[in-house]
């Protein structure tokens, strides 16, 4: 994909599409980063402000869809160009969902308010760290056309799933022994679920990147096929 098209205008259209996907990705990462900062700081104002940013992501999704359809109709792309366009069309749906999940986290943070219970081992940040890194690396893999990095993202989904599976057993004894933390814990479970879901979307993006780079569909085929 590092070779330029003879038709400079076409080259420009593809480049502009790629840039808009990157911009959308940057907005999504920003929403996640702010959502997690709002969570850690219990900053309701920041959470509410972050929710407002989601409209930028939605707008970019519409623009990218439109531009991709224009290229399909007018350029009839094939081979790596076709894989890039179809990947882009599918990828923005996952990116938009990741943005929505960031909003869901902000909504839960707003419900939590400024107060927090004493909990020396907050399980949320470790899930968030892996999930956010997966989103970041999936986008990096898309930009660089790096199937190895994409496969690493796919493999990391297991870690997020394992952390999420531990969340309920960790929170349940606290809720049973202290009913005053039930409200907070249910919000934490919801945030954990959002993080687990957004890691799934990052995995989808990574799978699409493998297809874009290698022309090989690795969805629904187990870890062995990712190599």
């Amino acid at each position, binding site marked *: 994909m590092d070779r330029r098209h*003879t038709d400079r205008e076409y080259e420009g259209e593809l480049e502009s599409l790629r840039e808009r996907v990157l911009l959308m990705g940057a907005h999504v990462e920003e929403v996640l980063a702010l959502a997690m900062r709002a969570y850690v700081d219990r900053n309701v104002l920041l959470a509410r402000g972050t929710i407002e940013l989601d409209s930028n992501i939605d707008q970019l999704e519409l623009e990218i869809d439109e531009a991709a359809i224009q290229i399909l109709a007018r350029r009839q792309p*094939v*081979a790596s160009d076709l894989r890039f366009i179809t990947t882009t069309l599918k990828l923005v749906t996952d990116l938009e969902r990741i943005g929505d999940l960031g909003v869901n986290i902000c909504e839960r943070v707003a419900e939590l308010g400024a107060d927090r219970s004493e909990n020396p081992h907050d399980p949320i940040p470790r899930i968030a760290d892996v999930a956010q890194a997966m989103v970041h690396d999936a986008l990096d893999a898309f930009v660089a056309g790096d199937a190895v990095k994409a496969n690493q993202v796919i493999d990391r989904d297991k870690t997020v799933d394992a952390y999420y599976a531990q969340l309920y057993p960790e929170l349940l004894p606290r809720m049973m022994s202290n009913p005053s933390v039930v409200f907070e814990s249910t919000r934490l479970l919801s945030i954990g679920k959002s993080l687990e879901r957004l890691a799934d979307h990052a995995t989808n993006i990574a799978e699409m990147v493998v297809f874009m780079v290698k022309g090989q569909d690795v969805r629904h085929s187990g870890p062995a096929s990712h190599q």
Partner: protein
Amino acid sequence: MISKPTNRKGSRNEGSSGDDKSRWDEVSVSTLVPKMRTEDLHAYFGQAEVLKGISLKIAEKQVTAVIGPSGCGKSTFVRCLNRMHEVVPGARASGQVLLDKQNIYQGDVDAVRVRRRVGMVFQKPNPFPTMSIRDNVLAGLRLNGERPDDPDAVVEKMLQRVALWDEVKDILGRAGTGLSGGQQQRLCIARSLALEPEVLLMDEPCSALDPIATARVEELIHELRKSYTIVIVTHNMQQAARVANFTAFFYLGKLIEHDRTDVIFTRPKEQRTEDYITGRFG
């Protein structure tokens, strides 16, 4: 309201009938049954070598598209498949071209007989200008010294086969050149088919036609491949993608890649194929 595509393959339901061979079948180039095969085929115009050792299998009763930039040798290649290349003064070929395992360049093989078995349709529709539609269909047979018992039946059968009968059955005595470009091209295909060839070579058969006439010829190609082996040379890559089961990419007289059409247009293996079909050739 979604209108029905002119090209029947555009309709999913009709295109998936049981007896119809799917374009997306899993036949690979390594397992295809060849009707024709070239082995180390070289072709020259005087001192200039335009084909540099082409070894390619042409799948039986399938459509093989030959694509590549101007001057890559694709037209010369198909003209070697029925010994039309040598008709040009100073032109010669070496290597083997096998038709059902027989080398058509062997000394005792009659080139005229080869051309009956391997017919050709050209870029520009070329009905004989002084002949009627009917006589155009029969022209090939007559040039070969044949007089069919029932010429009218031959005319109807061939015009039916190219889906032209209903359009011309009442004007068979009129000049073939009075038809539209698309009709003329289908008439020329009927003229080739009258000789009952086994292989049909088509050199840019739609480049002079409008999109509707092109869709009709492409629809015809889908029909014809049930009975004939077809090789089509085209500059139009979308056309290759639409009609061909297999696609061969030629560059500078060499075969760069030959694979199933869906593979060529979604994940070609060779960088030069990728560069050409995506428009990255400078």
